[in-house]
């Protein structure tokens, strides 16, 4: 029971706490605090298991993957590796508007930092696992331009020992007996005919080595995670009522954060600790090279991909795993010109922006959003009225998402 004589003192204490609380919270409402907390990198947590890749968290497999990731021999001209486009000193992307492998692609390289937390891969999400994503550029004519047969030859020649430590014993085959360009292709190509001529048993062995190569690269890419940024220091302070930490952002940056989670509605798509929902949206980005229909083109091919999560090469149980594929809404119309929401972690350090590098600056991106908001140019962009001052504040906030250990990257 409360002593009635202490009541005035108690009320005063409560009143002081409320007052101090308001100050400490930087005037954020309880809902805003939850939204800020949802962006905090601490909530990223450990990576979930990847049931489609039983080697995903094997250090020795990741070590092999890292070597292959940086190995230019895995390209038709021996000049291109994964790291050619996913450059360590540029947030694992590059400065080009369109990725350049052995030829020119039609889209920009995506940063792969933290990508293992997502469900879909590539700008259009045509691959449903990280390891299957890693395989696609190898056999793409304008990226690495090689074949799975060539991959098997390279593994036998240069990685025999470490491969066998990481995976099973290499099969008793001689990949060098087969044409370097032999690979399955949808067209009636020489490569395809060469592939068809290989005995089935050896085709299986070669494809298994190819798949394991992808799983090794994926195991390495899983280790690439974003580091805390200035925003995270501030968000921790907001969440934990830590007064000194509230000074980590200046007034301009805080206004930008308020716009980001409020009037600007950026958080609709850029949510979670990666500031991306990993989903696909039509945001009216102008075409660059013809019309790019984005996810709509591939949405019905996902499940039939040779290396899908439900395929024989996946380690997942297709009945209980691969929920993102099993429950996918494959309605073509809703994905017309839709592209994946990129993470905004480190975004200020790695222009240009959008799927074909359409914008050089973050302010250019935001002005585009303002221009198309609420129009028929985009299906779901509603940002209210954004002023030039708002754009400056949002850019100031986006600059606080740069990892503190990466503060000079890209400069």
């Amino acid at each position, binding site marked *: 029971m409360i002593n009635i004589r202490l009541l005035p003192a108690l009320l005063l204490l409560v009143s002081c706490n409320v007052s101090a609380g308001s100050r400490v919270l930087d005037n954020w409402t309880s809902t805003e605090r939850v939204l800020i907390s949802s962006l905090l990198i601490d909530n990223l947590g450990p990576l979930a298991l990847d049931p489609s890749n039983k080697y995903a968290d094997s250090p020795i497999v990741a070590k092999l993957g890292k070597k292959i990731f940086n190995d230019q021999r895995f390209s038709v001209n021996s000049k291109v590796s994964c790291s050619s486009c996913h450059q360590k000193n540029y947030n694992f992307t590059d400065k080009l508007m369109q990725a350049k492998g052995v030829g020119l692609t039609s889209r920009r390289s995506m940063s792969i930092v933290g990508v293992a937390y997502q469900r879909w891969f590539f700008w259009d999400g045509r691959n449903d696992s990280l390891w299957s994503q890693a395989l696609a550029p190898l056999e793409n004519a304008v990226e690495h331009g090689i074949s799975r047969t060539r991959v098997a030859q390279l593994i036998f020649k240069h990685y025999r020992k470490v491969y066998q430590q990481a995976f099973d014993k290499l099969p008793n085959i001689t990949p060098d007996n087969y044409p370097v360009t032999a690979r399955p292709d949808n067209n009636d190509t020489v490569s395809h005919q060469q592939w068809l001529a290989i005995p089935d048993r050896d085709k299986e062995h070669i494809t298994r080595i190819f798949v394991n190569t992808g799983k090794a690269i994926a195991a390495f890419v899983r280790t690439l995670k974003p580091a805390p940024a200035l925003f995270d220091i501030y968000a921790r302070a907001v969440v934990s009522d830590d007064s000194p930490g509230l000074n980590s952002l200046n007034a301009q940056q805080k206004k930008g954060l308020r716009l980001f989670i409020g009037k600007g509605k950026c958080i*609709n798509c850029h949510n979670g600790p990666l500031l991306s929902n*990993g*989903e696909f949206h039509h945001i009216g980005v102008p075409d660059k090279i013809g019309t790019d229909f984005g996810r709509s083109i591939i949405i019905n091919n996902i499940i039939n991909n040779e290396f899908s999560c439900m395929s024989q090469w996946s380690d997942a149980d297709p009945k209980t795993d691969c*929920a993102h594929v099993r429950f996918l*809404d494959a309605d073509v119309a809703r994905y017309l010109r839709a592209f994946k929401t990129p993470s905004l972690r480190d975004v200020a350090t790695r222009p240009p922006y959008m799927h074909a590098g359409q914008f050089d600056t973050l302010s250019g991106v935001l002005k585009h959003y303002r221009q198309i908001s609420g129009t028929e140019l985009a299906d779901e962009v*509603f940002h209210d009225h954004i002023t030039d001052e708002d754009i400056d504040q949002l850019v100031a906030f986006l600059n606080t998402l740069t990892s503190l250990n990466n503060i000079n990257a890209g400069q």
Partner: protein
Amino acid sequence: MERNAIILCIGLLISSQVLANDTVGEVVRQRPDKVNTSTTAASSKGVFTASYRVKNAERQVIPLNTIHSWQLHVNAQEGTSLSGLQVQFSSTMPEHLHGMTTKPKISSTGSSGQYLMEGMNFHMPGWWEITLKLSNDGVEDFVHFNLLVGEGEHRHNNNKS
């Protein structure tokens, strides 16, 4: 007996569908000041009462951008649990004119009045509306649930299931 059970199961599988999610012609609706996030709701004409729980969630919070399942329970107005209903589903964010990017599957669990809704995923924070069309022997009615996703803990008001 066993044959009847198989026929019933097939019937239930067929009866669970997803409502058309086409938002063409709709207009953006602004979020009201107060949103009723009750997890139990009576149907529009009062024929049914439905409630849901997030499966395998100790704290009954709708997860943001995570594929998960709901356990749905349907009663008749007088309280009898109803199995074997045709359950159709749609989701929308009234402020955005779109719904989920997944296509949930709804099936009867075999327990009285219980259904499993698999593949639920709310990929954006904010106000969501879930509509269930329940049909029983030619009687149809709609149940609406409002959700505020990613904005804090919205616990179940009712744990009946």
